[in-house]
């Protein structure tokens, strides 16, 4: 087994997710199934091979520094779950 339920819990926390105890066994099993399958990659010697993060030769795209119309305040807030005084309202961040 690659990962235990305890590690899955840790990964869930890093992902800002909770896996309920009732589903932990199934989740851990499916997780391991995929990671075990990933072992086939170890058959390949990839020493010295350049990684491909993007298939295109990507470079910075620049434009003239000209002010353009942006998103309005009202539009930016239009999908917010909670708003106060023209800002996004969230529960307390610091105790």
């Amino acid at each position, binding site marked *: 087994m690659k*990962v235990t339920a305890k590690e*899955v819990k840790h*990964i*869930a926390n*890093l*992902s*800002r*997710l*909770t*896996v309920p105890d009732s589903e932990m066994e199934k*989740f851990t099993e*499916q*997780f391991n*199934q*995929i*990671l075990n*399958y*990933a072992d*086939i*990659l170890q058959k*390949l010697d*990839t020493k010295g*091979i*350049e*990684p*491909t*993060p*993007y*298939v*295109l030769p*990507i470079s*910075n*795209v620049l*434009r003239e520094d000209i002010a353009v119309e942006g*998103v309005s305040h009202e*539009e*930016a807030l*239009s*999908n*917010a*779950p*909670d708003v106060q005084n023209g800002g*996004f309202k*969230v*529960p*307390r*961040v610091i*105790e």
Partner: protein
Amino acid sequence: MDLYKSAAHELHEKLIKKEISSVELTENIYKRIDQVDGDVKAYVTLDKENALAQASKVDKMIAAGETIAPLAGIPGAIKDNISTKGLRTTCSSKMLENFVPIYDAHVIQKLRADETIFLGKTNMDEFAMGSTTETSYFPTTHNPWNLERVPGGSSGGSAAAIVAGEAIWALGSDTGGSIRQPASFTGCVGIKPTYGRVSRYGCVAFASSLDQIGPITRDVTDAATVLNTICGVCTMDSTSLNEEVPDFTKALKTDVKGLRIGVPKEYYAAGLDPKVDGVLKKALADYEAMGAEIVDISLPHTEYAVITYYIIAPAEASANLARFDGVRYGYRNMKATSAPEMTTASRTEGFGDEVKRRIMLGTYVLSSGYYDAYYLKAMQVRTLIRQDFENAFEQCDVLLTPTSPVVAYPIDGKMDPLAIYLLDVCTIPVNLAGLPGISIPAGFVDGMPVGMQLIGKVLDEETVLRAAYAFEQSHEYHKVMAPLGGK
């Protein structure tokens, strides 16, 4: 008149000859949607009022003698991960159930400029993660050829809408096969353009190095027509290519004499349904009879493609979906008493299982201690997969493969995630290498459509379209409508 059975290029002729009006056409399609979407469930949201207003506008343009674009006044459907200003865009997720975009995707801006019509937004696997539409927060879409079967995915709603007569053309998005596989399962045409051909601006990001928007249509001519409109560089997507966009309809020729068609043996291996194999062998024989040259090819790293994808795509997804924190938009748990608790509760309740699984897998392969073994390794294998294709295209002009090793399977949720992932073997390598690929109908197995995939060189959609068109025009598969239980 059953206008819903027609292709966009046929309807365009009827519109400019004033044989029909756009309002009449649009109403005809909504009538069809009323009639069949209770069974098919292709749509998440309809926008009838705006669609009919737009149709009326186009009718006035035609009456005034204005020249109209090929898609003007022709109703289409948009996958629900493509931003439409003012029209709910859910990604078939509870997370975005009430999300109304404040801007249009680049492709939508271009289609609007051509005065086309948007009927509504189509169902998909949640955040495009899945191959069946079963991971949708909304009801699963049903395959119009057999309502007990999946339509494929993730663009299953768009593909089902086309073959059920619920849209004339549609947009999908393709990260690992999400346009081509549902096109194959439902018997229509779907093309994933070269990575960068179409701007991703406004397409809700899943895996940014792989995502690409493309058309799903009734025939190859319509695919070329939609491509003509949506391709092109955009200042809001730094990965969109500043390359001249040809008139793709000019590539539609029935002559394939001397065309070298590569047959990669790894795609015809174990796991391929023998009946699907039979359909493809017949297609190859047809091409040979038309004067094409068949070349045996090997793409030796094919067996590593699925896992390479299922490391890279979740890694990118875990970063992209970090934006859903319950603060600025999307679902929020209103009971949480602290901000961190609110974010975790909102994500846990807002995302479905498949999305959670992929976010966690991505988080794992990027985490310290595992990055080199999984993510870096996968990016290196991606290089080998790319090189396989580069070598292959020294010997041939286009590759012919199955789109999927199987036909559409039953809606029963019985397969485990890995078994479903492994069925993406024919489409995934194309995304990893950034190549253009099309799926077109090639025949039937047990009453279900079989798709064949044609893969081209970078930016060579024209050869792909030409090969597809030649096959299509010598067969009748694109003219057969799905039975839909007799409706």
